[in-house]
C-alpha cells in the first residue's frame, strides 16, 4: 500500500521544473545533423574539399609553369614526367587543369554571389514597395528573360571585351532574375504568415522580424539556389568557351581547356578527357551536395 510517507521530497525549484533535458537543437544544427547522416552528401563534401585543396596546390605539384611553352614536347600522352600529358604548345596538362579548375570555380562562386545579392535586394525591393514599383521592376525582369540569352551574352562580351569582368557580367546579367522572383514570392508569402503577424502584434521591431523570421527562411532558399547555380555557371562558362568568348590566354578555365581538347579529339583524346573528367567530378559533387542540402534544409522533412 502506497502512502505519502513512503515518499520523500528531494527538493525542486520552479526553474528545474521548466528545464529541458535534451539540448535545444537549432534549425541549423538539425540540418547539419541530418546532412551528416547522408553518406552521399558527405562524400561529395569531402570530394569538394579535396578539389579546393587541389586547385590551390595542384599547379605546383609537378613544378611546371602552366604558361611557358615547350614546343619540342607538344601533344604528348600521359607519362611519368607529364602525368596528364602536354597540350598543343607542350605545356603540362596536369598543372593547367588545376589552374583552369581554379578559374572555373572562382568564376562560378563570384557569379553565384552576384546572382544572390542582386536577386535578393531586387526581390526584396519588389516585395517591399509593391504597387507600381513592383510592376516596373517586374517588367524589367520580363524583358531580360524574353531576350535570348545568347544575344545578351555575346553582345556584352563584344562591348566589354574578352576578360574576367566581362565574363562575370555576361554570366550574371540574367541569372539573378529567378532569385529575385523567388525572394519576392517568399517575402510576400511570409508577410501573410501567422507567426510574422503574431510577432508584429507582440510588438517585435522590424529588424527583429527580419533577422528572426525572414533571414532563416530565405537562407535555405538561397543555399539551394547557390548549390544549383554553381554547377550551372561552370557549364555556361564552358559553353561560352566553345563560342570563342570568355577568357583570353594566358588565362584558362576548364571550358577553355575542353574546347581546346575537343579540336584535337581525334588525335589526342586525353587532352579532352582529363579536363572533362575534372569538370564532371566538380559538377557532380556540387549537385549531390545540393541534393543532400535540400533534404537537410527542408523543414517538412524534419522529424
Amino acid at each position, binding site marked *: 500500500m502506497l502512502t505519502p510517507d513512503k515518499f520523500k521530497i528531494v527538493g525542486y525549484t520552479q526553474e528545474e521544473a521548466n528545464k529541458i533535458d535534451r539540448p535545444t537543437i537549432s534549425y541549423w544544427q538539425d540540418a547539419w545533423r541530418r546532412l551528416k547522416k547522408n553518406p552521399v552528401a558527405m562524400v561529395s563534401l569531402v570530394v569538394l574539399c579535396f578539389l579546393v585543396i587541389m586547385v590551390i596546390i595542384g599547379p605546383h605539384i609537378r613544378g611546371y609553369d602552366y*604558361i*611557358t611553352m615547350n614546343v619540342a614536347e607538344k601533344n604528348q600522352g600521359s607519362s611519368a614526367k607529364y602525368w596528364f600529358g602536354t597540350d598543343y604548345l607542350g605545356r603540362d596538362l596536369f598543372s593547367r587543369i588545376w589552374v583552369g579548375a581554379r578559374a572555373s570555380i572562382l568564376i562560378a562562386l563570384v557569379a553565384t554571389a552576384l546572382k544572390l545579392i542582386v536577386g535578393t535586394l531586387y526581390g526584396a525591393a519588389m516585395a517591399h514597395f509593391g504597387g507600381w514599383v513592383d510592376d516596373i521592376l517586374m517588367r524589367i525582369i520580363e524583358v531580360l528573360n524574353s531576350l535570348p540569352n545568347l544575344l545578351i551574352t555575346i553582345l556584352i562580351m*563584344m562591348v566589354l571585351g574578352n576578360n574576367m569582368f566581362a565574363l562575370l557580367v555576361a554570366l550574371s546579367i540574367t541569372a539573378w532574375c529567378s532569385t529575385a522572383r523567388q525572394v519576392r514570392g517568399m517575402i510576400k508569402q511570409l508577410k501573410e504568415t501567422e507567426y510574422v503577424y503574431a510577432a508584429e502584434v507582440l510588438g517585435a521591431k522590424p529588424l527583429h522580424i527580419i533577422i528572426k523570421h525572414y533571414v532563416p527562411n530565405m537562407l535555405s532558399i538561397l543555399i539551394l539556389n547557390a548549390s544549383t547555380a554553381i554547377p550551372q555557371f561552370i557549364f555556361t562558362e564552358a559553353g561560352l568557351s566553345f563560342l*570563342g568568348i570568355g577568357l583570353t590566354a594566358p588565362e584558362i578555365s576548364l571550358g577553355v581547356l575542353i574546347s581546346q581538347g575537343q*579540336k584535337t579529339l581525334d588525335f*589526342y583524346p586525353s587532352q579532352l578527357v582529363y579536363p572533362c573528367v575534372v569538370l564532371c567530378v566538380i559538377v557532380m559533387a556540387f549537385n549531390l551536395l545540393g541534393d543532400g542540402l535540400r533534404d537537410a534544409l527542408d523543414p517538412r522533412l524534419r522529424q
Partner: protein
Amino acid sequence: MHNMKKALALLLAGVMTIGTLTACGDGTTEVATAGDAGTVSTATGSGDAAAAESTGADTQVMNVRTTAFGNNYDVQDMGWRWMMADCYEGLYRNVADSEGEHFVLAGAESVDVSEDGTVYTFHLRQNAKWSDGQPVTAHDYEYGWKRLANPEYGYSYASFIYNVVGAEEYNLGTGSADDMMAVALDDYTFQVTLEVADPTFEVKLVATPLYPTRQDIAEAAGDQWGKDWTLCVYNGPFCMSELVEDNKMVWTKNPYYWDAENTHLEAINWYIVSEDSTAATMFDNGELDQLQTSGDYSIKYQGEAEAGNVQRLVSDYPGTIGLRFNFFGNDPSGLMSNVKIRKAISYAIDREEMIEAVYGRYKAAYSYIPPAISFDGSSYRSQTEEVISTEQAEYNNNPEKLQALFQEGLDELGVTTPISEVTLTFLSSGSTTESQAEREYLQQTIQQKLGCKVELNTVGDSSLLKAERDAGNFDMMYGGWYADYNDPLDFMYTYYTDAYGTSFAGYSNPEYDALIDSLTGETDIAKRKEIYQELENILLIEDCAFAPLYYSTKEVFLQNWVKDYRTSSFGASAEFYITYIEGRNK
C-alpha cells in the same frame, strides 16, 4: 599547275552575265535533276555520293567541302571569287601549272595592243553563249565594266580600272559613263583605252569584276541583282541549280558553254561542313571527293597521301601573313616609332619553329611579296633574294643580341624603363586552335627572347578587330595581305600612304610613295623589278613596317578517283572545268 583551276574559273566567269531569270532554270534544271537522279529523297544532306556509288558506272558528280557560301552573285562585287570563276568567264582565264600562275585567252580569242601600250582591242569568241542561249557580246563586257565604275553601286573593285580613260572620273562622280573608254566597237570587238601604259593591266583581266554582265537581265533584276541567284545567267562551264543556305549548293553543267564537250562533270555538290572532324569522317567514307582541312587533320592526310590512299595538291598561295606595327602614333607602349624596337620584335620570332609548332604547313616568310606572285613569266621570289633572311639569321635565337637591339631602341627614344617592365600589346582575333596557338606562341616567344611583357588584346571577329585597330589599341597586330592580282605591285601598293585607309596601321613614307608613283607608265621590266626590290627594302629593312611570318600555301586532298582537278590563286579556287571521275566504284 594547281592554279590552272583559277584560270578556268575566270573563263567561266566571263560567261556569267545574265540571261533571263529563268536562264539557268529552263536551260539546266533538267540537267540538274538528271545529275541528282540517282540520289535519295529530298534531303539536303550528303546521301548523294553514296547513292551515286551504287549505280555502277562512274557518275560524273563531285562532292566538295566548304565552310561557308558567299553572299553575293554579282561578278562585279567579287564577293565570291571561288564560285564566280567556275560559273562565269571573262576575257582571260588564270591558269596555274608547272610554269606558275599565268593567264590564257578565254572569252577573247585574240588581242591587239597598240604600240604605246594604251589601247587594247579584244576580239571575242563568237561561239560563247549565256546559259539562256544568248551569245556573249562585247556589249555585255561594256556594260559590266561601266557598271563596275558606276558610282551608284559603290563596287569595291572599281579602282581596278581607274587607269581606263574616264573611269576614275565616272566613279568619283565627276564624269559620265559615255566618256569611259571601254567600248564595244561591234558585237564581238571590245576596246579599252588606258590613260598610261600599264604592264599590270592584263593580269587584272582574270578577275571577276572585269567579267561581262547582261544589261537586260541585271536591269530586270533591279535591286535583287546579285542577291537572288535564281535571277542569274551564267557563261561558264557550270551554273548554279540549287541552294540551301548553310547546307548545300549544287552546280550543274552548262549545256550552252562553248567548250561544253570538254566539261565532264554533270554536277558538283558543295556541302557546308564546319567541323574538321566531320569533314574527315565524310572524306574517309567517300562522301566527299575533295577536302581542305587544317592542323592535325592535314598532317594525317599528308601521311595518307604518302601511302597513296589519297591525292594531295599543294601550291603556293599569294598571301603573306605577319605582324603590322602601329604607326598611328598612339601605340600603348609608345615605342613603336623606333625601328630598332620593331626589328627586335620581328627578329625575335623563329619563323621555322613557329611554322612547325603552330601550323604544320605554310612556308617561312622573309619578304613581303610571296612566291606565288609571278613577274615576267616566273615567280618573283625566284628572281630576287629574300629580304630579311640575312639580317634575321644574325639575331635568330640570340636573346642577348635581340635584347641589346631592343635596349638601343629604348635608349634612342630616351626611355629609361628597364626591358622587363616594358609591356607590348598584341592584337589578334579568331578562336580556332590555330589562331589560339599562334597568338600564344607569339606572346611567349617575344616574352622569352626580349624579356618584356606581351599582353594579348583578343577580339572575336573582324569588325571588332577593325574597331580596335582604328582606335590604336595595339603595338603590333596580326595581319597580312592576299593578292587581288598577279603582280608584285598589288603587294607593294598596300603600304602606299592611305591606299587602304587605316588598314595598314598608318604607315607613311614619302620616299616609298614616290617610288610607287614612279611605276606609273613604266614599261621597262628590268626597271620595274629594280623599283620593287627597292620598295621591299624600304618596307622591311629600312622601316621594318611589317614583320613577315609565313607565306600562305594551299593544300587540297582528293580521292584517287578524281582526275584533272586544279586550283588557282586568281581565278576559281577550285577549278572543275576539265575534272572528271574515274574508278570511283572500284
